């Protein structure tokens, strides 16, 4: 199977999975004992107002009809409905909040990869030396520390005690928004003050978010690298008298890098999960905070919209990971029977 057909097939597989996600969220919302319409209308609402809301959101209809109405709107008008609490279209809300979350998650992802993988490799190459112990301690701390706690700890140290970095919020400096990604927009505006402010505000949440994934990557990379270094062909390469550098990087690393890459897709999912916590703590105006708020207020259209977007991002990131295998390892024929 060619790469293009494989990607096409995987993209087609998106549809049933997204449909499954949609059905599941609707089933959960159906099982809620509380009456969402009453919650949206507020405590002072008259019964007629509540009834009108129920009619508007098809809450009186059976479950399969609700899903049908939702799908019809989504497919025909690319419309995710109107949020019951912000009274704006969910699509607009998500569009407004997406760049902030993406900026945060992507930066953290990059940080985790750039630090995690090299640290894992060095740790394996210098096994049982000081740097290995240090790397393993960092990795263990990373995977053991709850995100919401390290966030508070970093705020306490770097904002309150040292005063180096701002504690909460995204950059408020007014610049023309081309894309909504503040880092990118500042560069496009040529506004370096805005860039440095945006960057300083990004550091604490991104580092906190990256910490867990980084630790996980160090562990996976180290284990995988150690295994490869003990394999026969590395011994053979050594016997041939190849220089250490070539053995380590050309022979060992190329094979050892597959497991860390496999977990990158899952890692991105964790980062998105983490944004819910982090955006709440750092008052970061992103999708995660939006989702947490929507769940509290039983804002069903917003929750469904958010879950669909996140599921889409996660499936796509897994697809990218699968495709990148074939680029790194020519033995892996995508779509073929690898098992």
């Amino acid at each position: 199977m060619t790469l293009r057909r494989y990607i096409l097939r995987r993209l087609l597989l998106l549809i049933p999975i997204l449909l499954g996600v949609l059905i599941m969220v609707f089933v959960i919302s159906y099982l809620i004992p509380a009456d969402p319409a009453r919650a949206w209308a507020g405590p002072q609402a008259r019964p007629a107002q509540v009834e009108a809301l129920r009619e508007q959101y098809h809450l009186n209809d059976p479950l399969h009809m609700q899903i049908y109405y939702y799908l019809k709107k989504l497919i025909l008008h690319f419309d995710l409905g109107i949020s019951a609490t912000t009274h704006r279209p969910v699509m607009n809300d998500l569009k407004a909040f997406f760049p902030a979350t993406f900026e945060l998650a992507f930066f953290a992802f990059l940080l985790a990869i750039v630090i995690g993988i090299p640290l894992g490799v060095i740790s394996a190459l210098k096994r049982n030396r000081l740097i290995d112990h240090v790397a393993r301690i960092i990795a263990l701390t990373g995977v053991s520390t709850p995100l919401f706690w390290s966030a508070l700890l970093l705020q306490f140290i770097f904002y309150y005690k040292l005063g180096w970095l701002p504690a909460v919020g995204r950059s408020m400096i007014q610049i023309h928004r081309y894309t909504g990604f503040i880092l990118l927009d500042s560069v496009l505006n040529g506004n370096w003050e805005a860039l440095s402010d945006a960057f300083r505000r990004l550091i604490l949440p991104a580092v906190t978010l990256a910490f867990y994934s980084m630790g996980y990557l160090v562990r996976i990379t180290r284990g995988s690298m150690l295994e490869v270094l003990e394999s026969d062909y590395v011994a053979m390469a050594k016997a041939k008298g190849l220089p250490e550098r070539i053995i380590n990087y050309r022979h060992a690393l190329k094979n050892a890098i597959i497991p860390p890459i496999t977990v990158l897709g899952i890692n991105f999912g964790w980062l998105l999960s983490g944004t819910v916590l982090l955006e709440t703590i750092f008052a970061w105006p992103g999708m995660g905070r939006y989702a947490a708020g929507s769940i509290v207020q039983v804002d069903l259209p917003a929750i469904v919209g958010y879950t669909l977007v996140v599921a889409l991002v996660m499936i796509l990131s897994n697809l990218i990971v699968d495709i990148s295998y074939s680029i790194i390892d020519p033995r892996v024929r995508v779509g073929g029977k690898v098992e």
Partner: protein
Amino acid sequence: MKAPPFILLSSRYRILKKRLHPLTKEFGLTLYVLRKSRLAMIGAVIVALFIFLAIFGELIAPYDPNEIDIAARFSVPTREHLLGTDKLGRDVFSRILVGARYTIRSGLTVLAIAVPTGIILGGIAGLFGGWLDEMIMRITDVFLAFPYLILAMSFSAALGPSLFNAMLALSLVWWPLYTRLVRGQALAVRETAYVEAATSKGASKWNLIFKHILPNCLSPILVTFTLDMGAIITAAAALSFLGFGAQPPLSEWGRMVSDGRQYLFQAWWVSLFPGFAIALTVLGFNLLGDGIRDALDPKLRRITEVKWKKRIRS
């Protein structure tokens, strides 16, 4: 003449011992490998301490965890209040000691619900194959397609926020991991000669699951679970932190971190110490899990086995 009963008993014991020998031998080796690893032992000590606190925390706590003493509010860590007091003057140290039980309860609940569900579904999917396998795995895919925290939050919000519902919600999102694990193992075991032999002798499918596939899944499940315990504890604490789990005045650790968050700069000990307790416990489970994984790893085992045999002989 019949043999006196104690001889019968002792011979039975000998037969039993002989039969169990491969099992006990392996177990002894596992323990030996585990004991050799210093980090794993540190992990074991932390986990043991945690379990001890979960059972006896209330007895050794110097104060009642919910005793309000407004006069002593926001006391810095002193000799009377080892880790200070919170906004109501409650002793943070006592609250942490008592809180251990809520944390272990969430881990055990997930163990009791998610793991058996995963084993049964994974076993069925791997063994029966066909449309049943397809259906189970697609449902698993849906569950894995979005962040577990969001899903758990929605479940918990739907059921009404309480500690028990948060645990239930976590169990609901945690089983797919074990389903995948057991299915993979079942697929591998299904192809082995001894399963073929059992099938040709007429063993039933359930017999296959419980006699052949399950025992072969036990060590990966054990390793996954020990390493997972940390993630479960963190997730449960995160749910409580966000307000979807334990409700006040319960001294659940995640809840304590969130309650103290407002006063972080004024009284850091209120939220930072409970968070440290979570981190330490998770670290303990991770260290122990690493140790168990290494101890069950066939490669590492054989290397140590030689040393172990030498030691037993001498």
